[in-house]
């Protein structure tokens, strides 16, 4: 097996909550609480979960935009977890990010061409005419016309803006693209175009994706493997087909049951979850899902389940798997 493009081990990110004049520490938000995964070349890992479960924090920590509290991030075999900003720079060429909001992720005062050209200039990859030609080439790759390089972000539609965002991420020929909900702000018809673009680019460049979404249909379409997050932890981690056909964790089962089926005559017994997501400031003891789980047992309230293989290659963190 070839070396994974990225390996994340026991990643934690706790945000301190400070109050008062003396900035006294009054608590911690356990945004990410021990997340591990790896992505191989040309593979897409879908990361799903409710809003506030720590998906975006995982993305930002992996990108080293925020400092992890604990854990390690290995990029192509090199540990980049504790690298300084300067030492990190060459590694930034290997991973780039596409953001959720196509409006705030592009500087309104720069032309689309300048936005895509910028990474080339920052890393000294190309300049002048060469950079212009490379930019034009990337524009074509993402389905934009080179003539649109002089346009400002507000002159593009949402889908086109996201294409500019993807073009910026592609400029440095990265191996990994972290896509944080890249299509959730788009219309459904545009979503499909952008997803297909991402998949085409993956085939052409052997790209790896960490694809974050809350839309299960989208994740099912683009991912090879899927990780389900709940309150800062991965609760289920499996091959896409396996996960969608035979979900093992009660949370995944509930998520899949909540997906609308486009057939009004089909009546299903829906197991809808009750209650709210627990606060990541004070996560419940034991399994974080025990407050909402239909199969809750006494030991769920005290003992935190670890990820274990329910079937080969299919991991889930649930005491039910113990039989």
């Amino acid at each position: 097996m070839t070396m994974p493009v990225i390996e994340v081990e026991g990643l934690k990110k706790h945000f301190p909550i400070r109050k008062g004049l003396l900035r006294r520490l009054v608590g911690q938000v356990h945004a990410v609480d021990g997340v591990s995964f790896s992505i191989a070349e040309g593979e897409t890992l879908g990361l799903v979960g409710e809003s506030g479960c720590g998906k975006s924090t995982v993305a930002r920590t992996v990108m080293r935009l925020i400092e992890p509290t604990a854990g390690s991030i290995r990029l192509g075999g090199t540990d980049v977890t504790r690298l300084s900003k300067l030492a990190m720079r060459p590694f930034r060429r290997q991973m780039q990010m596409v953001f959720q909001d196509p409006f705030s992720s592009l500087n309104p005062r720069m032309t689309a061409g300048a936005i895509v050209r910028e990474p080339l200039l920052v890393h000294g990859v190309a300049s002048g005419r060469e950079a212009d030609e490379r930019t034009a080439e990337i524009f074509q790759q993402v389905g934009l016309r080179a003539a649109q390089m002089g346009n400002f972000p507000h002159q593009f539609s949402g889908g086109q803006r996201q294409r500019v965002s993807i073009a910026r991420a592609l400029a440095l020929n990265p191996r990994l693209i972290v896509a944080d909900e890249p299509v959730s702000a788009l219309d459904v018809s545009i979503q499909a175009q952008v997803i297909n673009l991402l998949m085409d680019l993956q085939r052409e460049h052997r790209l790896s994706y960490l694809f974050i979404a809350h839309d299960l249909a989208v994740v099912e379409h683009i991912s090879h493997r899927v990780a389900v997050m709940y309150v800062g932890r991965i609760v289920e981690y499996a091959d896409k087909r396996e996960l969608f056909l035979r979900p093992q964790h009660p949370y995944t089962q509930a998520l899949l049951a909540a997906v609308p089926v486009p057939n009004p005559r089909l009546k299903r017994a829906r197991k809808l979850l009750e209650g709210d997501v627990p606060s990541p400031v004070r996560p419940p003891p034991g399994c974080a899902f025990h407050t909402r789980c239909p199969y809750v047992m006494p030991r769920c309230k005290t003992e935190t389940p670890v990820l274990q293989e329910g079937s080969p290659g299919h991991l889930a963190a649930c005491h039910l798997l113990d039989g």
Partner: protein
Amino acid sequence: MAGGTYQAELSRAGAGATGVWGQALFFVRSYPLGAIGAVIMAIFVLAAIFADVITAQSPLTTSARNSLAAPGGTFWMGADFMGRDVYARIVYGARISLAVGIGSTTLGCLIGVSVGLASGYLGGWFDLIVQRVMDIMQALPLLVLALVFAAALGPSLPNTIISIAIPLVPSVARVIRSNTLALRELAFVEAAQAIGMSEWRLAIRHILPNTVAPLIVLATAQLGSTILTEASLSFLGLGVPEPFPSWGRMLSESAAEYMRSAPWLVIFPGVAISLAVFGTNLLGDALRDILDPRQRG
């Protein structure tokens, strides 16, 4: 669509704006008020440059015979109590008043932007200390602070510009800081960090250009008050030294005594100041729109 209307549509959208005249015409059509502001400011600047060409009298020549002469004849804006030509003094005064107004606003904004950007971007202790210093400066009125600096530096044109510029710093720094704080959280800043851009370059390339709009509004609003502050400083003997004319001093030295007996001593400098403030505000408004790519369509 018929070819003719299409062409008209294009030229209205500025597509045909080629050359200096074409662009000037486009500017006048799209921003008529801004064009008026530009014309007012151009007249003042030209008057300041060519002051000796467009005036017959010297602004400094006194004559007891003409003391407080009413407008008309040789003194078409009248004469002050020393018999100096008000028209000549206003034209020459444009040099000092515009230099002080534009100079101190520019200097104050430059310092304010640097302080605000650094404070908002770096945050932490630096921000805390800088903001408390700004608090102290803002606790004093503009004039009092300017007085302190003017008294310390001594009366001269550059010193007047500096002493008026410094009190402007806190308000500019505050606005730029709060803008920086908001911008720092936007995704395009994160995107720049993800590229691996240096913090310095990020602040200059991505944050600074997005603070231009409030800065222009603030700067044009401050311009008028700097001209008036200069008047007060000069009145107190701490501004540009006598006998050089400035609008502010012309206004302040005659406002109390001659308001009733020789109103032209108050009206003409007052009109000059108002026009300059009005002109910069109109021009500033148009500039803010022109510099915003979203407004250009």
